[in-house]
């Protein structure tokens, strides 16, 4: 099948390229947008509660649900032994995630059993009455412990190019060190939720807040013993996803469906915020060891990286997450000789999962940290070292995984940002200011992002759509993607509207359902618009071609003389309303519905050798951040951010800007205030917004100059030459981390490179300052500390 080119010239575009507000915006602001918990509750609805393990690792000695079942209002209680099919695993791809723990619990928060009762409060109270006894087993709670015990959820993966050892040994200069990078909770505002409604033939309709309805459908069918055609999963919208609803919704959907199957009644399962945060996976925290050989100019000769991530108790998506960390450990830089060893550590903590960037941010942190260290070792500005190591255009342009960087626009982006942010003037001014300010220090950093677009698992790079045209001229569209706030439906509607020369409002996109588009991929990897936008365009193109063919025959006009524009169709110069043509076509018995299907071309790589082309293209960006640090307390304020980001040719600049700004602030939270804290027994202590601090309004820098690189255009044939935007901007926030590090370096007059782990909480910042002062041995508080 040939992929149709986008029709019409740029100046004919009616909906695409315009900053159309989110298609649900008016419903959002008026409270009329319906989330799953807002759906009018069906009659006889039960509410479910999952009782989870409160120890990190142990054997279940006794599990007695009789007291639970005897509680008022209880309709059913289910544990592993009660599963209808004996199937008890909802791991995506790799097994390891039981619906209910069998003999062993492997994290504090692991689902042990579930209860359905008349009210949520009754279900919870009844669950607490069960007798659950454990024999505690030794638990692995940190990456270091896992490495020491060789505990892994998946085998180690190594990517090599050239001879890293030799190049490092022969390089004029060398640095080495260890960096710890924290995890992150998604903190979607709408927590996990599912409602299962049993139908005839034992069928099950499941409303799930998920980025991946097809996978939920698969798990529900498999665990309940139904065929996929008996399970329908519907997702109208999520109140945020960020990767946290790619696999993590399955437990709640499956448990609700199990209880609905058992009782024959609808069941809703909505964990509260604490349970949501305790039960579900997060961004992987990493430790990274780096050894880098380089020359006096700061050019890297070779790197030797050891990346180890906390995967938790099961693989979940840890394989591809860690693969993507490897694929982004070069970020924007040419690394001639490379060894990257990636350990996928097993710990008795929640299984970590997808989170915007999907390992890419952690990989990037390592190389950016190493580059900063190189610069400080040499006494060269870090930006200069960054620029010297950028991928080249004609040479030095092959990634360690052998994919060629064909569309590198980073030199241009950085150059433009240097000017607009006045980087060099401010660098001078800040250095001068710091010399006069004994207690507050400013820091500045400009860091680039190069992020690969496509699912690394090649077969996920496909999408389908179903377009229906009604005789009143209105269009109804379904596609396989899910709406989580990113504006996917808005962009797709713009694309389809333009194909017919219609207005954005003429196209209605209905809830994602497995009943309309089958076998969909998760809405993830930033690829929602690339895949579903293109599939929808293909569906539109199919119907349009039928209409053209019909009109050409009907009016005896050459097909090339038929143009759709301004809600009209010009047929050899004669104009008729779109609805009129549709009516004529209907009466002439022309099919007015079509599917569209798209598979991303070009991508293919060998996961055993980590070589090939995992990505269709790269999205680029850069940010310059300035911070002000209090060296007595470690507090800091991000005062100014300038960023320039590449979205190709934007389909909707307002929605793209929303992703850029929101992604940046979310990345800033990851590296600054968002700290996950487990106690000595492996129990998460930061499981609510009172203890887990995502950025608040005042954390948005006073000066926040975000711009889209409006001259960019995707050189690959992606829909309307746009680029994916969901994940890449998150990593622009690495500039904030390095600005903090730069400010700390000012404490030692830039003579010593501070050591700073992420997240850079005030405590870590003050510790880094004090460690630096100790090494300098000359500052007052440090002298005190040494006494």
């Amino acid at each position: 099948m040939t992929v149709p080119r986008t029709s019409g010239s740029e100046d004919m575009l009616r909906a695409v390229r315009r900053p159309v507000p989110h298609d649900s915006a008016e419903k959002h602001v008026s409270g009329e947008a319906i989330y799953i918990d807002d759906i009018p509750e069906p009659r006889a609805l039960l509410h479910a509660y999952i009782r989870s393990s409160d120890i990190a690792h142990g054997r279940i000695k006794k599990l007695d649900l009789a007291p639970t079942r005897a509680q008022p209002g209880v309709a059913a209680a289910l544990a592993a032994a009660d599963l209808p099919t004996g199937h008890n695993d909802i791991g995506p791809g790799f097994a390891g995630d039981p619906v209910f723990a069998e003999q062993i619990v492997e994290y504090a928060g692991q689902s042990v059993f579930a209860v359905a009762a008349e009210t949520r409060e009754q279900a919870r109270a009844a669950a607490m009455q069960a007798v659950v006894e454990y024999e505690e087993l030794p638990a692995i709670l940190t990456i270091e412990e896992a490495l020491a015990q060789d505990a892994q959820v998946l085998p180690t993966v190594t990517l090599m190019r050239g001879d890293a050892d030799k190049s490092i040994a022969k390089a004029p200069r060398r640095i080495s060190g260890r960096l710890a990078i924290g995890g992150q909770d998604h903190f979607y505002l709408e927590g996990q939720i599912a409602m299962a409604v049993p139908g005839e033939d034992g069928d099950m309709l499941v409303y799930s807040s998920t980025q991946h309805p097809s996978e939920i459908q698969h798990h529900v069918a498999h665990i309940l013993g139904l065929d996929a055609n008996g399970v329908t999963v519907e997702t109208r919208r999520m109140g945020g996803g960020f990767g946290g609803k790619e696999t993590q919704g399955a437990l709640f959907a499956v448990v609700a469906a199990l209880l609905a199957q058992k009782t024959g009644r609808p069941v809703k399962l909505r964990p509260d915020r604490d349970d949501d945060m305790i039960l579900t996976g997060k961004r992987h925290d990493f430790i990274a060891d780096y050894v880098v050989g380089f020359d006096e100019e700061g050019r890297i000769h070779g790197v030797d990286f050891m990346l180890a991530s906390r995967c938790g108790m099961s693989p979940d998506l840890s394989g591809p997450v860690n693969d993507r960390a490897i694929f982004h450990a070069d970020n924007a830089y040419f690394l001639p000789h490379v060894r990257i060893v990636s350990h996928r550590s097993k710990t008795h903590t929640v299984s970590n999962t997808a989170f915007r960037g999907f390992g890419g941010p952690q990989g990037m942190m390592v190389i950016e940290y190493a580059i900063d260290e190189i610069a400080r070792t040499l006494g060269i500005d870090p930006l200069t070292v960054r620029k010297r190591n950028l991928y080249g255009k004609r040479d030095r342009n092959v990634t360690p995984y052998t994919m060629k960087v064909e569309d590198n626009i980073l030199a241009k982006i950085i150059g433009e940002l240097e000017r607009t942010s006045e980087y060099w003037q401010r660098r001078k001014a800040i250095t001068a200011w710091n010399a006069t300010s004994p207690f507050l220090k400013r820091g500045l950093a400009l860091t680039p992002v190069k992020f690969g677009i496509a699912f690394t698992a090649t077969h996920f790079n496909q999408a389908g759509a179903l377009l229906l045209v009604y005789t009143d001229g209105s269009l109804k569209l379904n596609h396989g993607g899910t709406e989580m706030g990113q504006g996917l439906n808005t962009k797709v509607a713009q694309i389809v509207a333009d194909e017919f020369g219609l207005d954005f409002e003429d196209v209605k996109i209905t809830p994602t359902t497995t009943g309309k588009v089958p076998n969909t991929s998760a809405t993830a990897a930033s690829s929602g618009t690339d895949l579903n936008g293109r599939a929808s365009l293909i569906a539109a193109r199919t119907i349009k071609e039928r209409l053209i063919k019909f009109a050409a025959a009907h009016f005896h006009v050459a097909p090339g003389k038929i143009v759709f524009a301004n809600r009209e169709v010009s047929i050899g110069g004669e104009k008729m309303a779109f609805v009129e043509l549709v009516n004529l076509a209907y009466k002439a018995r022309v099919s007015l519905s079509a599917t569209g299907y798209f598979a991303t071309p070009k991508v293919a790589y060998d996961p055993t050798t980590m070589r090939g082309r995992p990505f269709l293209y790269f999205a680029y960006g850069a940010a310059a951040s300035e911070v002000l640090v209090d060296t007595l307390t470690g507090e800091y304020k991000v005062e100014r951010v300038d960023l320039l980001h590449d979205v190709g040719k934007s389909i909707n600049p307002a929605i793209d800007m929303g992703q850029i700004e929101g992604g940046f602030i979310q990345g800033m939270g990851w590296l600054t205030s968002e700290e996950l804290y487990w106690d000595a027994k492996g129990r998460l202590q930061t499981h609510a917004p009172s203890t887990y601090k995502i950025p608040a309004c005042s954390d948005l820098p006073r000066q926040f100059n975000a711009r889209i690189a409006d001259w960019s255009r995707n050189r690959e044939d992606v829909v309307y030459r746009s680029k994916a935007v969901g994940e890449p901007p998150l990593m622009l926030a690495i500039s904030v981390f390095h600005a903090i590090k730069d400010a700390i370096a000012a404490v030692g007059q830039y003579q010593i490179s501070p050591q700073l782990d992420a997240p850079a909480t005030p405590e870590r910042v003050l510790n880094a300052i004090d460690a630096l002062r100790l090494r300098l041995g000359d500052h007052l508080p440090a002298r005190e500390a040494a006494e």
Partner: protein
Amino acid sequence: MVLFDVPGKLNMTGQIRFVLDGEVRELRGVAPTMTVLQWLRDDARRCGTKEGCAEGDCGACTVAIGERRGVDDMRYRAVNSCILFMPMLDGKELVTVESLKHEGRLHPVQRAMVECHGSQCGFCTPGFVMSLFTLYHSGKEPQRETVDDVLAGNLCRCTGYRPIIEAAQRMREYGAKDQFHRRAAATARQLAAIERRDTLALEKDGQRYFAPANLEEFTACFEQYPEAALVGGATDIGLWVTKRHQRPETQIYTGDIAELRRLKIGDDCIEIGGAASLGDVFDALLAEFADFGEILRRFGSVQVRNVATLGGNIANASPIGDIAPLLLALDAALLLRRNRETRLLPIDEFFLAYRKTALRNSEFIDAIRIPRARSGLKFRAYKISKRFDQDISAVCGAFALQLDGSRIAEIRMGFGGMAAVPKRAANAEAALIGEAWNEASARAAMRAIERDFEPMTDMRASAPYRLKLARNLLLKFFLETSNQPGATRVIRRDMAA
């Protein structure tokens, strides 16, 4: 239907009344701990208001409460409906996101949010809209700092806030007056008509709730139910219900007792009624002690401060409450009352042990007395937390210094987050009394402070960091009060001259 005895004049109907969308709603048989959010979503089927955390920290459940201002005007304040109990609506107007559209058209706040692309996933949006609605009605200029404060209690995970701030700054372009302005006088009259002058008494499922209308009825009620939980804004007790799944058997609401909400600025001291909300006293304390204002500005969020009380923050004796350290430094006293007996207790004798206070049976905090800022008093307070706004302190330190010539006549240091109770740094203070205020004495006190505290390690901070902060905050206080060169604060608002 009231099955128990209470003294005084009672509203025996067990009925609460409030205004919603222009109509008086009368509800009977409401459970005393039913939250406004539960009622909205489950009973009234107004699902625009969302639950994000059920602990008053994310703001997705924000609604506006309208109260009468004079005879014909209204004021609107944002509150978290997830931890506000239904009976607390009695006599007020409730405004939810569904109330805002008028004749099918979006409210200016809503229109601005759409035009500025202020929503993405939309789940936090109704809460933001309601916070902005209160800003719209406050008449305040939407400067960035004002907007930050108004929205500090609303978390958004999608937008990064920039477009929401823009919406706040542009909302009046879409209409300077709304239907609430136009019907303010009518609403005020409605509220006047349902104003209660006696004690509201509710009972449901073994839970009792009293809302006395004056001090006399309150004390009588508290005598009768000495185990009752006194509830002002429910920003703490609300969490007993939503987080610990406990139900206080008896609650006595203090929010209707004008005497307990008094604010008197005398020549010697500022006297604040125990049930005054933090919002009520903010301006007065800011004017007197700039840093008190700054700590209050960062205390909880607008939604919390609008209902949370000064007395509640003291009486719950949290070791990380932010008010007590300041009061310790300022040598405040508590006027404690049991029925007609009162006693005045210095605040540093109030906290006995973890969550244990000097309050006796049926005794309550009638008022807090804070000595006025004497000439020459140097007062500073610092709050260290992972996030500036709406976070709980790792350490809160407050310092008050009075010099006699070049010697230190008095110095008080109050700390939160350093011990099981809010506590003064006795050793550090002793090291300074009578000394000159210079770097050497400050450093000696920094060493002494290590003997004052053995803090703990938890998710907010490690023990060594807390101790380091205590020392460094003392140094910072010295720097700020001894004309040392160099700025010392990364956020500077309302700094003392």
